[in-house]
Every structure is written in C-alpha cells, then in structure tokens.
C-alpha cells in the first residue's frame, strides 16, 4: 500500500506531457494455457514480483485453446497501450508457424518483445520398465525398435509434441505418436506403462522421477538441473545436439510505445533479480540462465532463430512421420 502511494506521488510529481504516466490501472497478462500449468505458474510468480515494481497489479487471464494460438491471436489484436501482455512460449512464438499453416499472427511481426521470464528444461523420460540403463542405451534401443514403440505427447503444437519431434528426427526414430489431451493423461499412461517414452517439461515430471514411477534419461541443458541433480545432461549422455528449452517470455502487441516497453522490461529484470522470485522459480526446476534473452532485443533475436529452427525441424519430421495406423 505504502509502495503504491509512493509510486503515485512520484508519478504525480513528474510534469505530465499531456499523456498520463504508465501504468495507472491493472495490467492483463494473458496466459495461453490452463491455470496450474508450467507457463501459468511462471507467469503468476513473475507477474507478482513485477506488480510490486510497477505499482499496479498484473492480473493473469487464462485463454485456453488451439495450442495457445487463440490467446496469441487475441493478444496480437489488443490495443498497444501496455495494458495487455501475453506470456508467450516456445510453442506459441516459436513452433506455431510450422505447426499451424493458417496462423492469424506472426510471432515476430505482430508482437513487441519485452523479455524472457524463465525456461523450463526438457527431459527425456520413459516408463519404469524400459530396457535401458542410460541415454546411450536408450537412443540405441529406440533407433533399433522405434516402429514398435509408443511415444506420448500432449497434443499437436504442445511442448511435448514439438520437442519429441525434434528428438525423433535427431536419432532417426519413427515411433507411433500417441496423442493425449494434456500432459496429465499422458503422464498417467506413462506411469502405468501403456506408452514407452515422452519428452516433457521438468516441472511436471520432478515428483514422479523422485518417487521412481518413471525413469529420466537426460535433461536437455548444458549443465545438470539443480532440481534433479542425478539426471545426466544430454551432452554427458552422448546426444549433445538435443538442446531445447521451453522458454516462456512476455510480449506486448506491436506498436507499444518505447517508454512503456522500457518500464516493463526494467520491471522484469528486477523481478528476475529478486531473491525470493528466483528461489521459487528454481525450486520448480525452471532455468534462468539465458540472460541475453531477458532484454527486448535479445528476445527478438530468440524468436527469429526459434521460428526458423522449428520450421526446419518440423518439416523434416513430417517427412519422416510413419503413415497413420490403418
């Protein structure tokens, strides 16, 4: 309360140029997925911290549908006044153009990047009884027997879909891709052994791995994740090319005024430097190491490189995809 009053006092003391200082009412942060998922949790944690710096509440609004593209379309068409933001991620602002041919927005052209919040590393996990001791054996087994294996993913356009498409194309595997409505059901069938393996974000998997209900073969990070110190990196396991992170970043609609962008970007940097926020994110297994992408320019570069990368990966993956089961 006192902070809000202080900020208000400062804001009012500054001579106005005919345009009121930003922000003077709550800001909507659209999350393209259901409440409780990894992107939503990151958005709420970071949003809470940014609210304190900006002096106005960042209110999370979940807009679910079409793999996050409905929310992104809505955010792209919102007024560029800094009061509507979106927590986009690797899917909505990276892989979407490759997955959805008639996408109604362009990740680079329809948005003004603010900065990356946090990335959630990707893990390669398999059912408890999978016959492999480590990543090397796993890759060898999958390469040899891929036609007999079932790989679970959470729907076209989801993180598990795109990252495993990448993994499969890297090692030349052609498993049957079994689709689920969300990570929960997919994880459930992995635990019960109905499907063989999956690539998913660390946040969802840590408790299962710690309890031993599923096996983790590798984490796609340059160094081991503090949340799972016993899981080797893909580099250690002999597959260094598999480096991918489900990054979550804040975007504003194109045309947002530069002072607003600067304010938001500063608030984000401050939030990510705050000890409490960092601890909560790291406890979840999130990865805060990519400092370059935390600036608007760095994020713009990331978006461009990601869109290009996923176009290439998913084009080659669809060529290799096995024909649908008759």
């Amino acid at each position, binding site marked *: 309360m006192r902070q809000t009053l202080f900020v208000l006092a400062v804001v009012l003391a500054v001579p106005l140029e005919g345009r009121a200082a930003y922000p003077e009412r709550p800001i909507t942060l659209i999350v393209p997925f259901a409440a*409780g998922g990894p992107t939503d949790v990151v958005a709420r944690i970071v949003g809470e911290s940014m609210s304190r710096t900006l002096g106005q509440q960042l209110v*999370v609004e979940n807009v679910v549908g079409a793999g996050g593209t409905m929310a992104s379309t809505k955010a792209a068409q919102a007024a560029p006044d800094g009061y509507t933001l979106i927590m986009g991620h690797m899917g909505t602002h990276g892989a979407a153009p490759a997955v959805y041919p008639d996408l109604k927005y362009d990740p680079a052209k329809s948005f003004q990047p603010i900065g990356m919040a946090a990335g959630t590393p990707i893990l390669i996990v398999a059912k408890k009884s999978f016959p492999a001791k480590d990543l090397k054996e796993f890759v060898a087994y999958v390469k040899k027997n891929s036609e007999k294996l079932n790989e679970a993913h959470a729907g076209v356009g989801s993180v598990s879909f795109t990252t495993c498409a990448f993994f499969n194309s890297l090692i030349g595997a052609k498993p049957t891709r079994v689709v689920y409505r969300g990570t*929960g059901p997919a994880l459930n069938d992995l635990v*019960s052994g109905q499907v063989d393996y999956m690539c998913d974000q660390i946040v969802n998997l840590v408790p299962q791995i710690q309890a031993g209900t599923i096996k983790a073969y590798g984490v796609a990070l340059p160094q081991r994740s503090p949340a799972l110190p016993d899981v080797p990196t893909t580099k250690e396991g002999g597959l260094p090319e598999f480096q991918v992170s489900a990054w979550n970043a804040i975007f504003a609609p194109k045309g947002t005024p530069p002072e607003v962008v600067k304010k938001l970007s500063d608030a984000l940097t401050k939030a990510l430097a705050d000890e409490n926020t960092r601890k909560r994110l790291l406890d979840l297994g999130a990865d805060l190491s990519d400092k370059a992408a935390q600036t608007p320019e760095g994020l713009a570069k990331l978006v461009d490189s990601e869109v290009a990368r996923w176009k290439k990966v998913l084009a080659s993956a669809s060529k290799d995809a096995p024909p649908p*089961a008759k």
Partner: protein
Amino acid sequence: MSTLVSNLELGFSVAFTFHNLGLCFLGCLVGTLIGVLPGIGPIATITMLLPVTFGLPPVGALIMLAGIYYGAQYGGSTTAILVNIPGEVTSVVTTIDGHQMAKQGRAGAALGIAALGSFFAGCVATLMIAGLAVPLTRVALLFGPSEYAALMTAGLAFAVVLARGSILKSIAMVLLGLLLSTVGQDLETGVDRMTFGVASLSDGIDFAVLAMGLFGFAEVMRNLTVDQARDVVHAKIGRLLPSKAELRQSAGPVVRGTLLGAILGILPGNGAVLGPFASYALEKKIARDPRRFGRGAIEGVAGPESANNAGAQTSFIPLLTLGIPPNAVMALMVGAMTIHGIVPGPLVMTRNPGLFWGVIASMWLGNLMLLVINLPLIGAWVRLLKVPYRLMYPAIVIVCCVGIYSVNNLPEDVLLTAVVALFGYAATKVGFESAPLLLGFVLGRLLEENLRRAMAISRGDLAIFIHRPVSAWLLFTGLVVLVVAVLPSIRTRREQVFVEE
C-alpha cells in the same frame, strides 16, 4: 487400522482450526452458489479465486478450493430438480426424475434425498480415500485407453436404459450427441472438424450451451405452451423432507450409487461423469416397477446424487496419491499446490502428511457443512416454485443467458444456445428426449480419443479389446445391459403384432 485412526486424528487437528473451518465454509458456500447458477462452473470459479488463495497457507487454500468443487455438485442438483436445468454434467440424470418429483409437489423430498444421499456418499468416500487410497490408485493404473474405450461403450448402453419412451429414438439422440461431440479440433492432426470456420467452435461445443439450450430454454418454451396446468401443480408444496417410506426406498440406491460413483471417480480422464448414469441405469433395471422411472421415482434421484458426490470426492485420489490430475478441476488444484510451493506427487503423502490428511479430513467436514447449508434452504427453494411462472421464466432465461456468456465471453455462444433450444423444443414435441443426447455428447469425446489411442497402441488391431481382460469384461457388461434393455421392447412389439392380428 491404528495408523488410519492416528492419521485421521492428524487430519482433523489440521482441519479443525478456526481458520481452516472458515475457509471450508466459504468454499462450500461459494461452490453451492455457482452450482446453482447455470453456466459458470467450478473450473472458472477456481481459476478466478486462485490469486485470492496466494495469501493463504497451502492447506487452507486447498481446503477452500476443494470445498468449491464439491459444493458445486450439491448446488447443481438444486436447479436440476427445481427448474430442469442441470448445473453440472453430473446433474443431468437428476433432472429426469427430480424435476418430475418437483412437478408433483415433491420438490422438498427430492432436494432432501439429494442432500442426504450426497452426505452419505461423502462420508463413505472420505473413509475410502483415508483407508484405500493407495490400493485404489493401483486399480486406476490398470485402466489404459482400451479399458476406457470399453467403459465408454458400456456407458453408451446406459443411455438406452435412460429412455422413458421409445428405445429407437433414444439411440438416435445418443448418436446425434456423439456426432456433436466431434465438432472441434481433431486432437491427432490439429485440423478443425465441422466448425464451419467459426473460431470459437475450435475447442468443441460447450457442454453448458447444450445443457442450457436443451434443458433451459427448451423447457421454458415447452412450459409456455402448456401453461394452464402449471400453476395448479405448483399450488401444492408438499413435505420439506423425504418421508420415512421414501427414505427406506432410497437406502439401497444410495449405497449402490455411492459404490458405483466412488469406483468410477478414481479413474483418470473424468470417469466420474459416468457414475450418475450408471447408477440410474442400475436402479431402473433392478426396480420392481421400472415404469415408475421417468415419472418421479425417488430412487432415480437418490442413486445418481450419491454417485456424483462420491465420484467428486474420490477423483481427488489420483491427485493426492500420484500427483496426476484426473480432470480439469484437479489440474487446477495441482496448479494451486505448485504455486504454493508443494509439487504434488507420490511423495506428498509422506512428505506433507499434515496437508494430505488435512485435506481428507476437511472433505468430511465440507460434506457436513454442505448438508447444514442445504437442508434449511430447501424450504426457501420450494417456496420459489410457488412464484407464478410468468415471473419465473424471464428470470430463468436471463440467468441462463448470463451464465452462457460468462463461460467464454462470446455472444455467439448465446446464439448457438438459442439454436439448440429450437431444435430441443422441436425434438421433444416429436417424442425425442434430451438426456441421451447429452450423455452421447459427454461420452463421445472420451470414447473417440480412447478408441483411437487404443488403436494407435495396438497398431490397428481390434482384438486388443478382447485380449485385455478388464476391457473385455466391460464390453461384455455393456452388451448385456443393451440386450436386457432392448429385449422387453422387442417382446412387446411382437405381442402388439399378435394382438392386432
């Protein structure tokens, strides 16, 4: 046994603080209110209230959110009985006999048995969770896609039993419901099906749209064309609680419904929706005079209501023991726990016993509170029925419109509901019923997804349904139910033919 007692003691000591009791009450109250209001449901409410819970300790937050969830089950039955509008998917079956009872002036008995049956189910389910959580989880893990597909197919057979009139028409409505469930984005390919370019249909037709259209608006239209009889019927208030005889009649259905609902609720993937339908089908089949069903049989309310509350409670089991949410509401609970720093998983039971047992104890307390909230309200609800219909129906229409709009903030949804209502009105005029359509719709998506998943895993081999024992048994059960349901009508038609000759 002694560990169970000591665990429950721990749980109650956590749940019985002034703070947590207050949160439980608040959750139950909010849940009841949103259950009564059509359209807005527990998912939207929990999403909206999540930020409010940030200042609360994790146990308190979970207790409140859980209260909202099963409170909504209690509330949904109220509108189902009073105005024939199912507040939740699970209240659809309650409309069949519950509303008939209301029309006969027995609304009090219907509401009363719904509350009492739900309370009994809640107590039993809480005990089941406390004592059998881990073994039950192992049962749930036996269920793979082929078992689900078989279960849903058996569920469709129940739809036939739901029919009050012609079996053929009932099957037609179920098939239509199945067709409607395919509207939307195909999960496997990401391509839109039958959306006619309307972006809001990409996620499928909303259940609320169908329920409001077929049950809400269509009912209003039906009543407006027959309004002479209506005021006379509503002159009687009747008893406020079920009579001793009705209680005795309901005892069996309540117990059976509880068991059915409890078992189906554990199954991940929203098995809980089948509970009420299965219970209704069972009660109708074993009743001495099945023709009473559809005309105000109290067993048709007691069984399904117990089933839906038992299912709502046991659906917490996969969340608490495995950390895997079985449906969208539980997924929100996962989020709530994660935001509070407790990542749900198999180790929560041992690492946070206070949280685990506290939530279980609060479930029982929540049920008690809901009984205390709902029983006295019966008098108020029943008096509401005496309001002249010309004043009631505009209120119903407005509340329904607001309810539909509140789901997605889209005016197209309200228009779609109106179109569905026109269809529903025409259909009932010609003798088709709406409940089988809703059942087909609800089961359709689950059936299709699991069928295709099972086929993908078996590489197209249909025999997988017979090779796996659980799915084989479920299919067999479904076949038996179907045959038993259809047989009498074949026999009567043959008799009719003979008589005419």
